[in-house]
């Protein structure tokens, strides 16, 4: 029951891996996606990854990349610092996000932010806005946005999110085969909640997928790992 659409609509084998600086020929009016720049009509790869092309668009599926916040993204953040009326969250991006008191999880007096969310706490939140320097403001006002106080957070390379977990099929498989509650956030973090042993089984599956994910032609076998019943 391997779902082909989980492969992003392409055959996992025979991918063309390119390195930064590689020339990809003339753009010929195609849409230019991730990891490519155009110089004098000539396309140049700027990331290590697999070329994904169709008649309309060409992009690179990177083997490794950093999360870049976009408005509306669901993210898992960890409180790194607290000030009297705001929190700084690590959201796995190149810069911390800001959670102002007004968008926080509860009411508190000025200076009481620490009593609501302390350093080291984990929260589910959404990107509210991103300015031109990529600094982002997050909100916890919304359905399901809250403090996470059980389970564990694992990191998934963002490119795996685009391929393996893009349409939710692999995630469903993961949930159904491990009896865990799993929330996949857009910033490459996964919240896994359940009994300690079922959490361990998710972690071990993810560990195997992560090792395999360096090889981007491996999507089929990654799905098999996710699918496998826990012994």
């Amino acid at each position: 029951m391997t779902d082909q659409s989980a492969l992003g609509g392409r055959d996992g084998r025979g991918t063309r891996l390119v390195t930064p600086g590689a020339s990809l020929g003339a753009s010929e009016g195609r849409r230019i996606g991730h990891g490519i720049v155009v110089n004098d009509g000539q396309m140049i790869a700027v990331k290590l990854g697999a070329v994904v092309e169709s008649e309309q668009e060409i992009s690179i599926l990177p083997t490794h990349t950093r999360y870049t916040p976009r408005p509306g993204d669901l993210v898992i953040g960890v409180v790194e610092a607290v000030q009297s009326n705001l929190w700084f969250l690590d959201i796995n991006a190149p810069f911390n996000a800001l959670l102002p008191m007004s968008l926080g999880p509860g009411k508190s007096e000025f200076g009481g932010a620490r009593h609501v969310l302390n350093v080291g706490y984990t929260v589910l939140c959404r990107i509210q806005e991103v300015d031109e320097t990529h600094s982002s403001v997050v909100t916890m006002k919304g359905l399901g946005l809250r403090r996470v106080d059980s389970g564990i957070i694992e990191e998934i390379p963002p490119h795996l999110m685009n391929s393996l977990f893009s349409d939710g099929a692999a995630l469903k498989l993961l949930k159904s085969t491990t009896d865990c509650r799993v929330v996949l956030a857009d910033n490459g973090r996964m919240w896994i909640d359940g009994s300690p042993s079922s959490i361990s089984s998710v972690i071990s599956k993810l560990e195997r997928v992560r090792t395999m994910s360096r090889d981007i032609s491996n999507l089929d076998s990654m799905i098999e790992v996710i699918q496998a019943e826990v012994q």
Partner: protein
Amino acid sequence: MATPPVPELLRAHLNQLALEDQRLDGRARFEGRNVVVETGVLPRAEGSARVTMGDTIVLAGVKFQIMTPYPDRPTSGGFMTSAEVRPVSGVHWEAGPPSPEAIELGRVVDRGIRESGCIDMEDLCILPGEKAWQVILDVFAISDDGNLFDAFATAAMAALRTSIIPGERFDVGEDRPLPVSKTPMMCSYHRVGGRYVYDAVRREEIGGGERIHITLGDDNHVHSLQKGLKGAFTAAEFNEIMEHARTRCAELRDLINN
């Protein structure tokens, strides 16, 4: 892959796992990671080793210098250990002068070796009161996924045991192997989820409490102990890990001596 900074959640999960006597990576409480020791890996060092334990990788290199013996011990050579944990080895290691933790690492490794008497300082004398060998041991982290202490101590002994004193290069006699009469080994334990585990990975260190390092020589003589970080332990807990250290140090010793 960077370790997610989730101390609160991680600590809670480690506590949960401990209740079922489990660990993050599925190991048993006193089960170590596979240890791989390679010697002769640094061509510019007079003795060297590379130790890999899971994703923790370290190097040890031994160099020799000629020193003037200290006036109170005119027939003794010297031994010095320096530990470097440079920012190459992990996102959490900062640039700059050695951190207190790196200094502690070097000193604990140094004490275990020095106090075991495995290096005969008198044997390092070249000309009493004037010339003696100084043995300089550099331990260097490449990748830190926890328990640098044991990795360093293991690499250090493997490097020392394969060292050649470069007499010819310094024009003071022939090259000869550095005599190392004993093999002190270190075992480290971290409090994780309320109880002690052996050979913690980085995430167990982050979500854990205090740690205890035990260096045992041949015949299980104790040569160095160190308790680090905030926390307290009972005599019964110590006896339990000491018991394990005796077995494990012997296993590691066999690994080095072969």
